[in-house]
């Protein structure tokens, strides 16, 4: 009799194990297993054929790859987890027996599990670690806002507070901030470090909102925070050393231990923002400042792709300008504005920041009465006492400047004026063909004049009423292509003419600009295009047709919208003109 093949000993059934089986294999409790999986980055999987993977069982079980579990088996951390379990059992016993000295001893000597090697293992290179900083920063920033909670260890919260501030400091030192976006959820920041864009959210600066435990598993999230804080710490270390800065930075009383002690005593006095406003210690002098660092870009393109190279050069120039955006500005924050994002955004581009000493005693560098202050950021309809030497602007100006990469004119952001919309810098332009109103164009390209109404009205007030209609019709006529200019050669040429032509050829004449027949060129191009279209395969023809029709339709829409806009502008101008006329007539009568 041949050997009977047993079911699920090969193939998908052998490749997956259930969570229970994994627990038995690793000899860990469920809690420890979860922790281990999160820290090691092992996640459950969905098999292609669930029934087969579950060895014929129905229902849905949590499955892991057997390979992954074998990978976990070699982790030295497992032994540490087991030791920890033993230690905690001892502690529990001591508590039950009410042995106070033992309790104290065990509570203070809980074995610490180091996960440095796991960080290294999960992020083999520094760039890998930077790529995963999005989540790390978001979670750490969130944990940093938490007060003392029952379900989260205080040292973790303190560590998160310290690390996030340190990271922000590095961004300030490297001038790495690129984009800011204030949403209703929180404030998004994007920094660029080593060519990696890191985006994270910080919640709005409001008192801590109690989280609902039903929605979020606090224990799981704190495990994530544990891992990410370790990763962030090592990333910080490297970033500081790359910039020749001393690590850990000395930020006054803002150290993890101090914060933890404060949290335990439940009187938090140290100021995050004050810590953010401190200068950093350098390990080496005479080192190039990242703000002034210049890179000699190659003038020739690498792969012959000149356009791309040109684009890259322009982008680099813009970023270089952006790094010194607020250089030399002295900005005072009124007490109602959110200080943390503003201080971060301003200091990232070289501004000097201060705030009210009476409300926030720590960290203020200059008083409100300082005459050298250039801008004061205010978020209320009016102020009683104002200085002439400075602009009073709303906080959106700072963020819009950063996103526009230029110092925007302050007029629109003056105190009490309704603000222009705050656009998201994270939008991806997926539609190239769309109507862009001049207001939006002006946001990206300030050379475009937005509203000519005022100027036009000013002209009108000078009593020189022109017919604007004719003036505006002219450019349209110009746009019309001159199709009818066709060369009129090729009829009959006499000998004289020929001789003349030859004589002309001998002479050196003053050069005339070459006339390019645009209409002919266009027609030729069009014909070439038609020929190309003929070559399209049958199966793609319908697709091409639909694409083309869509394109035409979109162009039509854009034209229509432009036309509407023009009509609207013209009518509004005429109305205003009529009003002015009427007013003048009234004045004349009076």
């Amino acid at each position, binding site marked *: 009799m041949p050997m009977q093949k047993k079911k699920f000993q090969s193939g998908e059934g052998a490749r997956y194990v259930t969570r229970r089986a994994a627990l038995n294999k690793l000899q860990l409790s469920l809690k420890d297993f979860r922790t281990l999986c999160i820290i090691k980055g092992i996640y*459950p*999987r969905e098999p292609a054929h669930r029934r087969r993977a579950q060895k014929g069982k129905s229902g849905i079980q949590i499955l892991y790859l057997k390979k992954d579990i074998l990978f976990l088996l070699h982790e030295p951390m497992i032994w540490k987890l087991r030791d920890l379990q033993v230690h905690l059992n001892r502690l529990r016993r001591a508590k039950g027996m009410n042995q106070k000295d033992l309790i104290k001893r065990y509570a203070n*000597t809980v074995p610490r599990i180091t996960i440095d090697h796991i960080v290294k293992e999960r992020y083999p290179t*520094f760039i890998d670690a930077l790529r995963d900083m999005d989540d790390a920063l978001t979670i750490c920033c969130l944990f940093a806002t938490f007060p003392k909670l029952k379900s989260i260890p205080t040292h973790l919260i303190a560590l998160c507070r310290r690390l996030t501030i340190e990271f922000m400091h590095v961004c300030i030192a490297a001038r790495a901030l690129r984009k800011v976006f204030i949403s209703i*959820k929180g404030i998004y920041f994007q920094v660029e470090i080593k060519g990696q864009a890191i985006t994270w959210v910080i919640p709005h600066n409001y008192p801590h909102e109690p989280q609902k435990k*039903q929605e979020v*598993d606090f224990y799981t999230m704190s495990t994530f925070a544990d891992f990410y804080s370790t990763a962030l710490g090592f990333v910080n270390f490297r970033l500081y050393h790359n910039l020749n800065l001393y690590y850990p930075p000395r930020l006054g009383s803002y150290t993890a231990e101090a914060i933890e002690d404060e949290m335990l005593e439940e009187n938090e006095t140290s100021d995050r923002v004050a810590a953010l406003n401190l200068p950093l210690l350098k390990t080496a002098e005479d080192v190039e400042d990242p703000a002034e660092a210049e890179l000699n870009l190659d003038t020739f393109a690498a792969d012959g792709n000149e356009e791309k190279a040109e684009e890259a050069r322009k982008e680099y120039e813009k970023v270089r300008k952006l790094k010194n955006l607020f250089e030399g500005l002295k900005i005072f924050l009124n007490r109602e504005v959110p200080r943390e994002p503003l201080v971060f955004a301003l200091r990232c581009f070289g501004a000097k920041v201060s705030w009210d000493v009476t409300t926030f005693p720590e960290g203020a560098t200059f008083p409100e009465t300082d005459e050298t202050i250039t801008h004061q950021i205010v978020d209320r309809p009016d102020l009683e006492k104002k200085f002439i030497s400075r602009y009073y602007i709303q906080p959106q100006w700072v963020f819009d400047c950063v996103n526009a990469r230029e110092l925007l004119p302050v007029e629109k952001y003056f105190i009490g004026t309704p603000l222009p*919309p705050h656009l998201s810098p994270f939008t991806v332009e997926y539609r190239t063909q769309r109507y862009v109103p001049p207001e939006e164009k002006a946001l990206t390209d300030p050379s475009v004049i937005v509203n000519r109404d005022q100027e036009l009205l000013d002209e009108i007030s000078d009593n020189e009423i022109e017919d604007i209609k004719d003036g505006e019709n002219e450019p349209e006529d110009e746009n019309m292509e001159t199709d009818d200019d066709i060369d009129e050669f090729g009829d009959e040429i006499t000998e004289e003419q020929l001789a003349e032509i030859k004589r002309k050829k001998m002479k050196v004449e003053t050069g005339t600009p070459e006339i390019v027949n645009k209409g002919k060129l266009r027609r030729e191009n069009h014909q070439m295009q038609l020929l190309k279209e003929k070559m399209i395969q049958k199966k793609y023809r319908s697709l091409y047709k639909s694409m083309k029709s869509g394109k035409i339709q979109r162009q039509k829409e854009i034209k229509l919208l432009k036309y509407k806009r023009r009509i609207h502008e013209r009518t509004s101008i005429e109305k205003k003109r009529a009003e002015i006329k009427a007013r003048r007539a009234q004045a004349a009568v009076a």
Partner: protein
Amino acid sequence: MKTKKKAGRRLKRDWRRKIDVTDVDTYLDNKRLEERIGVSFTEKKNEELFHIDVSGKKKNILKPPKKSLDAPLKCLSSLQSTSAIVPLAKRSVKKNKKNKNKSDEKFDKNIKPLKKTIIKKKDAQKLNKILKSKVKMLQLKENSTNNDVFNKDLWSGYREPGQHKEKLINNVIKWLPSEVLNHNAKILPKLSDKKMVHPSQRLCKVDDMKCPHPGLSYNPTIEDHVSLLATIAEKETELIKHEAHVNRVTQSLFKQVSKEKHEQIITEELTEGLPGFSNDTVDVANEDTSEFKAINPPTTRDNQKSIKKRKIQRRLRNEERQRINAKVEKKKISDLYRLRYINQELDELENSTTKKKLKRLQKRQISNISTRRLGTNKFTESHDTFTLPKDLKGTLRETEPQGNIFKDCFESLQKRNILSVGKKQLKLNKKKIQSFMHPAFKITPDMLAEYNV
């Protein structure tokens, strides 16, 4: 050696009893003494006793003698006797180690309580133990403050523990044939050439955290805000539609009646046909008004089929049968002709099945990237955050934060297949506290009245 004349020599016992061994003893004693003390000085030569120091202050560091191949194994050294004299009898002495100084070892004289008190020795030891642990703790704390956890660069110049050893082993492994490695891998797992690599896991690429919708701005443009609201509304209408569908398919398939009506129906059903109930009378009334008529009443002689009709029917039946037979014959012939097309049809079938297979594969690949089902519960996206136009204030001071970033973080992890979706804990599992009344406590009727019991 002297031996007694009349003594048995056969057994060992005889020898032991009757042989005088004093001379042997004295000989051995002398030998031992000589070994212990050495040969008397008078017998030694001058060269043995003295030597001229030529090296000066430097001491010659003697190199350890080279091991010869004949030397006995080191592991057997404990079995060898160090004495030059052969022992008289084999003895295995069991040494009873009594470590008297054990308690003293633990006792650290340097650690003393600050206050001087008179205590018993036993208590002093206990106290010393506690104090020792305290000192250790303090030292630990000091170290932790001095040494930051993040004190090394992980990505350059940092060597993991055991990395050096691994390198050595790798160098050795290069020289060993694979059979040897495989043979020894069971005993020394480190010898195996295979290295555990972190399993690369493709995660769901979708991440809403990275790119916020422009309509989420605290001061958005009208178009962005409208588009955001439109997308949310679209999602909501779809959800409502789905809910309605589920309702229609499940709940409204069954008739629903209120509890009272249900009871009423049951009583009606049970009392049917019983005299003295209202239903009975109603039925009677119905019977009176309408005449009873069966669905298939029995035939009578009046509506019998005529012979002519029967003949026609028979003829029609025959014709039908013939037609069917002809059709079958025709089909047989046509099938013969069709034979050459069968191959073509088979090809087409195969083609279509492969196409379907490809499509299915593509679909699976797409679903690999998206959110998958890891546990019993399916991931459902929660509602997006938004503000109504009336709540948009346009200034930073007045904007109210919406949404919950913490929850978003958690859900994004679930969305990216990192966490399996668990059950939502609608109420926290708090242990109920059972309360008892003390048996001696007496309750008076006034008390009950007071607490409205």
